[in-house]
């Protein structure tokens, strides 16, 4: 099934799709206002893009420096070539300490690696502590947005879920009360957790530190209470210095939700007193992306979600329609680069409006990459029908005579073979009326004498 077919199911519920669109448009408006509150905003984006480009140009060096400095501060650094190595490292760390109750704060990387189901299969309890993540975890579905994981759900659905799982009153759908119920439920999980797993927003090469940004405080609680903190990061999370970090901290929350900064921006340099800090650095295909000249810039992504919020297609099709770990414009690059055949429809889930490229805080050339990906997918032979149709069109359009003749035939077809014409036009006319066809084309009306326009 293509993205378009899955999206059609989402838009079929007009009220929900309209609500989803409006909710995310509101987030984009808040982003716009936050960006305008910083006079140097566009220069800041240039700077962030430049820092990322230079960091990626010496990524191995920065990672080695990070490892050295993190280790000297008492953290233990692990390396994972792929998702299964990552999951194995985490499991072994937990098992060695007899930890069975684990709290986790939001991490798209562990989502990508399938860590939750893996640990559950091995008999561990793993609880997502971000409210949105907890909601989708209880529903046994993936997040539909990288910053707002449960944005596809209405409050009544959350109410039903909490009634079933947390014992809230039937029919309760007030977000404040539901959040309060989750707070009680999750606080109990925090207080009894034996280990905390977190993602990483930024890793600082020069200091060996980690930075994690949350609004709820869940990463902080999840690492302050249990003695073991496991931080999982992709290789692209490293930034050279604290001075560089300032640029990204200014951009991240403003781009994501329009906040000037997240409520908590936590800096971990070494383990907490009496505790342990393990850092798992994961490749899982990222080095392949780095090697793809046309797409390497996608590695600069800081996962703010701004491209999702501004995307008119994402807003109206919902995150699950992408069937990828990360939805929206950035996900429509990351997934097909990895598996072009499976995700071949994602680069086409785009009108080429270009708004994503303009909001990206690190200036990834998102819509240009999506266009290039289409060519790569067609060239690789994943859309043979489209290729055949294009070959024919190209031949026709190379000859003015054939082009004109085809136009004439097409406009007569409606008269001569209305049934066939109707079938051909169906994808257009499923929701639109046909235009009144003019009797003659421009070229038929204009005189052959190019400057003489008297025949109009």
């Amino acid at each position, binding site marked *: 099934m293509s993205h378009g077919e899955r999206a059609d199911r989402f838009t079929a519920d007009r009220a929900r799709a309209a609500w989803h669109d409006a*909710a995310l448009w509101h987030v984009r408006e808040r982003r716009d206002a936050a960006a305008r509150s*910083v*006079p*140097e905003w566009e220069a800041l984006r240039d*700077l962030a893009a430049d820092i990322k*480009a230079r960091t990626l*140009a*010496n990524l*191995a060096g920065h990672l*080695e420096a990070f490892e050295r400095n993190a280790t000297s*501060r008492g953290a233990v650094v*692990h*390396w994972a*070539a792929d998702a299964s190595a990552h999951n194995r490292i985490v499991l072994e760390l937990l098992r060695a300490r007899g930890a069975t109750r684990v709290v986790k704060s939001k991490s798209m990387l562990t989502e990508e690696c399938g860590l939750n189901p893996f640990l559950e299969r091995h008999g561990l309890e793993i609880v997502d502590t*971000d*409210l*949105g993540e907890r909601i989708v975890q209880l529903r046994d579905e993936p997040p539909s947005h990288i910053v*707002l994981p*449960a944005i596809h*759900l209405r*409050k009544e659905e*959350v109410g039903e879920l909490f009634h079933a799982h947390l014992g809230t009153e039937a029919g309760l759908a007030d*977000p*404040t009360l539901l*959040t309060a119920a989750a707070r009680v439920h*999750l*606080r109990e999980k925090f207080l009894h957790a034996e280990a905390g797993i977190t993602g990483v927003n930024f890793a600082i090469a020069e*200091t060996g530190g980690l930075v994690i940004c949350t*609004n*709820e405080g*869940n990463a*902080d*609680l999840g690492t*302050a209470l249990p003695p073991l903190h496991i931080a999982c990061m992709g*290789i692209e999370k490293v930034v050279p210095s*604290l001075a560089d*970090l*300032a*640029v990204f*901290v*200014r951009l991240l929350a403003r781009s994501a939700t329009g906040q*000037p*900064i*997240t*409520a*908590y*921006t*936590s*800096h*971990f*340099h*070494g383990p*907490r*007193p*009496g*505790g342990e800090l393990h850092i798992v650095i994961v*490749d899982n295909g990222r*080095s392949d992306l*780095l*090697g793809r000249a046309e797409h390497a810039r996608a590695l600069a992504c800081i996962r703010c979600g701004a491209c999702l919020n501004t995307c008119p297609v994402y807003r109206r099709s919902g995150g699950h329609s992408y069937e990828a770990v990360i939805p929206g414009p950035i996900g429509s690059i990351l997934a097909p680069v990895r598996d072009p055949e499976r995700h071949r429809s994602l680069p086409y889930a785009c009108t080429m409006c270009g708004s994503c490229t303009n909001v990206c805080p690190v200036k990834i050339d998102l819509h240009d990459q999506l266009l290039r990906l289409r060519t790569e997918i067609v060239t690789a032979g994943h859309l043979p029908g489209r290729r055949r149709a294009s070959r024919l069109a190209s031949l026709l359009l190379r000859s003015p005579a054939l082009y004109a003749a085809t136009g004439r035939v097409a406009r007569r077809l409606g008269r001569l073979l209305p049934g066939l014409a109707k079938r051909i036009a169906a994808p257009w006319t499923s929701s639109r009326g046909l235009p009144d066809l003019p009797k003659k084309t421009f070229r038929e009306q204009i005189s052959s004498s190019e400057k003489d326009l008297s025949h109009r």
Partner: protein
Amino acid sequence: MSDRDIVLSRIRAATRPVSSRDTPSAASWLTFDDPAARFAEVLESVGGRAVAVAPAALTTGVEQLVRDVGADRVWFDVAQGGIEPPAVVAELQLYVARGGIAVAENAAVWVVPQTIRHREALLLAEHVALAVERRTIVHNMHEAYASIDAATAGFGFFISGPSKTADIEQALVIGAHGPRSLTVFVVT
């Protein structure tokens, strides 16, 4: 080969030198005529509250806050005579701590908890108050990172307003996991 060697060698093989491009010139960063006023304004916009107090009035201010939130389990380690931490931090109603620098552009206060107990209290207390000195308010995050020593702190965080979530229908709810209110005493 270890995963470490595999990953690093893959990265090295994939890396291209950065194309020669001009480093964008450092822009002049956002500053404010009255950083303390901006700090208070932004803090309010993120759900917090700034209270300007003279040094001598800090204790009175805290006492007022204790009454306002109706707290009877309070721990404050900012002023002389602060009481000892309670045995069960999770039952704290109000925790008053000393902040480091504060940032005008985003109402963030740099806080370095002295012990793990302090760190827990900042997250588990129903209400948190921080005391910062007005003269330490910087304009923006560039100045902030230049003036703190994040690396030697071990753990430190910028706190901007109370904990919050909008994960259910984008409805803002203050007090997600952490404190339900954040008051910052700006000491003149």
